[in-house]
């Protein structure tokens, strides 16, 4: 029968081995030649967009690349689906946006911030999501 020290060896051994593989795969994922995100095209505007995304907790209702809340639409392909002008109107609205009943917080963003958000969405929409982009955003696919 298994002894306690064998059980401990199983625990320690398994942990160390899988952890090392995990680190290896992490390094592999971030090697420039495996980049699926057009990392080089992250502009100042995209970064500003990400900052706005975080400081307003947009993810508390929406999801992006499938991560976030389930209360409001997925935004990975929102610009393709709705167009830049529409997205900017929503962000700049001073009244809670909610044409179908469910309300969004009224952010009343200025023009520069709204542009930054759009830049961020545009960058996101070009990421290679291993096929998820076609499932999550059928409308944009159908349109193209």
């Amino acid at each position: 029968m298994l002894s306690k020290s064998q059980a401990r060896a199983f625990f320690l051994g398994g942990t160390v081995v899988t952890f090392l593989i995990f680190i290896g795969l992490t390094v592999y994922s971030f090697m420039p030649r495996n980049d699926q995100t057009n990392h080089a095209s992250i502009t100042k505007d995209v970064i500003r967009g990400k900052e706005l995304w975080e400081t307003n907790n947009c993810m508390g209702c929406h999801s992006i690349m499938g991560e976030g809340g389930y209360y409001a639409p997925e935004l990975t392909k929102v610009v393709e689906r709705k167009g830049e002008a529409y997205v900017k109107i929503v962000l700049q609205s001073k009244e809670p946006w909610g044409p179908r009943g469910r309300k969004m917080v009224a952010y009343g963003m200025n023009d520069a911030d709204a542009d930054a958000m759009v830049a961020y969405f545009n960058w996101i929409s070009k990421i290679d999501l291993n096929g998820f982009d076609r499932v999550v955003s059928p409308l944009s696919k159908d349109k193209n």
Partner: protein
Amino acid sequence: MKYKSQKVAYWFFALCMLLFALQLVYGFVMGFARIGMDGLHEVVPFNTARAVHTNLLVLWLLTGFMGAAYYIIPEESKRELISVKLAYVQLISLALVGVAALVGFHFNIWEGRKFLEIPRELDYLVVVNVLLFLGLILGTLYKAKQRTTTSLVLTMGLVFAALLYLPGMIWFDSQVTDSFFRWWVVHLWVEGVWELIMGGILSFLLIKLTGVDREVIEKWLYVIVGLTFLSGILGTGHHYYYIGVNKIWLIVGGIFSALEPLAFLAMALFAVYMYRKGEKSHPNKIALFWTIGASIVSFVGAGLLGFAHTLPQTNLYTHGTLVTAMHGHYAFWGAYAMIVLAIISYALPNLTGRKHYDNKNGHLAFWLANIGMLGMTVAFGVAGVIQVYMERRLKMEFMEVQNETKVHFVVLILCATIFTIGIGLYIYEFIKYGRPNDEALVKED
């Protein structure tokens, strides 16, 4: 209780009860918003309610784990905590940091990264607080007369949990890199190191409640936490399928996360088997129910419902839908909420010296909470499957589909009410037990 300093655990548990109750309030805010009753939108918009709901959850669970450690470590080490005063300082500062973060969420002060919404400035205070906590626990262990496997596994879980908080504090320009390391915190917590904490608490409870030999229990504890890390570390890959990183994670994440339920299955078999094998029949039946319950419900919520959407072929469709919310609720409930309620139910009579072991309210609380949560899980699940089908198969518009799922949120609110009555009874019993006192000191519980 055997050591005076264990009393500090009581106050952690009391804070736990308060935070838990508040968590439910915000759950209802979201539930009602989802059926169109969003009258609070201007004051508590959905994203605020969500951040408060999930952060309170994490906070009360961590508070419970800390209370558990302050209760278990002295007993396992056969000595008092090195400083009771500092433990109270730690408790109060934890409460203050927590409250500051939660209040901030109501004023658009946060970092919108799911589950890690606490702003960076407060993160540093969290780190200081946790270091103080770990200092007290490690100091006590260092001076201990004995260091049991149970106490080591529990402490290892707590130390790793603290270390893993750090990758979540780094700023990245890329949303993809940000998500990648966010999962180092979120996934490696719940499907890694928190299982060590759960395993440690479970093993302590089984030793006390069943009277099975410590050596046997602790041997299996190693096997369980071994399975946890073996599957859970590489299982992180199930969050990397569709967020813009290499396809290799589809294979690695798929295989290893599919093995994750084994650790939970082992935990359930372990608990049930030790219970059967045990000769001792401890009178604290309520603690026994929560303990065995946690091991079984965690297998269903985390193991089975996790497995249900963990293969890349399935996750492609369910990723980021209410199916995830279904699993999130039942997994957190079974594994972590129930184990915290188990250790509280076990410790409370010992801390206060009042042995109302087999009271009716306690049993009723257990059943109402569990029936309510099961119902909520089904409601989320049905809404989730409908969402997946209509939105991702039939390609219907988001809000059109959401309107179709409204009725399931009415059911959710009804079940949540049953659940809340159960938790209300639990808290009522907690209060009725009264305060901890030195007269409760005994040689053997």
